[in-house]
């Protein structure tokens, strides 16, 4: 069974926000909203500094609190573990927004709840998500973790990686290589 995941190589990421803009034009995200974003984490005091740059989005968690708490089943999981929202089942109660520790969801101006879909329309056509395909530094990789030879599996096997807030128990599928 496929398990899609995305790997972000923070060594390569320069935080240019191309992923943010590409997602917006690919998915017609309304202006003023974004499905993915760039975080810069800086530690230390001048001049001993270290910065990690990450491209973040919905983690399409294995143990997703948002799917669990949805009263109508609008938030659901499809093949590969991709978490989607069925617009005409969503009542806009916003429980999923409260449940997401990554604050990845938002209320779409049309009323339903929206978020990153891993470009499921592209994945089903055999392509990669828009952010992955546009990234000029090639820091984003998308693939199937259940395939032992896929790019993502290889990367996770050969490099040190982490996820965000693992203690929240969500089993996120967005990995960050250091």
């Amino acid at each position, binding site marked *: 069974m496929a398990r899609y995941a995305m790997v972000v190589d923070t060594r390569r990421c320069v*935080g240019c*926000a191309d992923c*943010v803009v590409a997602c917006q034009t690919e998915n017609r995200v309304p202006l*003023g*909203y*974004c499905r993915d*974003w*760039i*975080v*810069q*984490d*800086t*530690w*230390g*005091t001048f001049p001993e500094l270290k910065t990690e740059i990450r491209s973040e989005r919905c983690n399409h968690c294995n143990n997703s*609190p948002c799917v*669990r*708490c*949805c*009263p*109508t*089943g*609008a938030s659901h999981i499809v093949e590969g573990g991709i978490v989607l929202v069925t617009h*005409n*089942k*969503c*009542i*806009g*109660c*916003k*429980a999923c*927004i*409260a*449940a*997401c*520790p*990554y*604050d990845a*969801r*938002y*209320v779409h101006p*049309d*009323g*339903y*709840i929206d978020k990153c879909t891993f470009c499921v329309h592209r994945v089903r056509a055999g392509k990669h998500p828009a952010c992955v395909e546009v990234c000029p530094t090639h820091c984003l990789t998308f693939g199937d973790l259940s395939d032992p030879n896929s790019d993502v599996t290889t990367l996770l096997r050969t490099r040190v990686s982490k996820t*965000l*807030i693992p*203690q*929240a*128990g969500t089993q996120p599928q967005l990995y960050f290589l250091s």
Partner: protein
Amino acid sequence: MNSSAMIFHEQVITSGRMNPEIDPSLTIWGWEIPLYLYLGGLVAGILFFSAYYVIRHREDEYPTAVKMAPMWAPPLIVVGLGVLLLDLSHWRYFWRLYTTIHLESPMSWGAWTLGIITPLSFLWAAIWLEDAFPRFSWPFLWIKGVINTIRYFRVALAWLILVLAVLLGVYTGILLSAFNARPFWNSGILGPLFLVSGLSTGTAWVMLLARSHGEREHFSRIDLMLIGIELFMIVHLFMGFFSSTEVHVEAAKLFLGGPYTAPFWVLVVGLGLVTPALIELLEVARQKVPVQVPAALVLVGGLVLRFIVLDAGLGSRWLY
């Protein structure tokens, strides 16, 4: 002399994320949800005691609690539901709630509980209507017949309502505590706390409506006990946070030196719990005190509690 070094950790979202109602902090729920939770708790309390004393066959001892107070349940529930509907951003699809049940979703629990308890509360009010308003009498014989039949089975109905009322009261808290993404809500105590608070507001409602001194005094005693349990739970709530993770400690600190310190400890605990408890103590000690005062304080305190808990929870987060 400052001999310790400072290490800074700066986290910046540099692509300008400003999703409305998400950034810079969650504002997805306004006044509608705390009001709805409050009304849910209040109705739960009212129906609980009404049902309980029917089961205990003491309906004539506490007529207000059993017969008068439930008159308020239907309108309060309807207002609560209306306010809930107002909050939905995609309200035209609200009926989807009743096309499925998700056992892992407290909101689904709540939707179904409300879905059942609302008509039941109407039914319950209907059987006591003639008692509450002596000049009223059901038209048509067949209606009278139906009412009397239901009345005959009122103990069974009361059991059903009792269980649903407890569910309603507890779910208002579990709804929030199931969101482990909001550290301030993430405590198992929240459910029972809201239930007890709901019951307490229910007794306060009865105290306001009650005609006989005996009934007033009885419910004062119950309320006193409930307030005691609430205070105990609040202490435990904070103890739980302090023995949990960093974000929980930070969330707790919002109430101990942070922006919610004064509103919570003065308004909710001081005026909403301790003061009415003291007044009720006096009442129990046979002093003459206007019972409306502690009742009103408890009712307002419960409302403020919900508002503060909602607000503080939305403001607490794991990231950024």
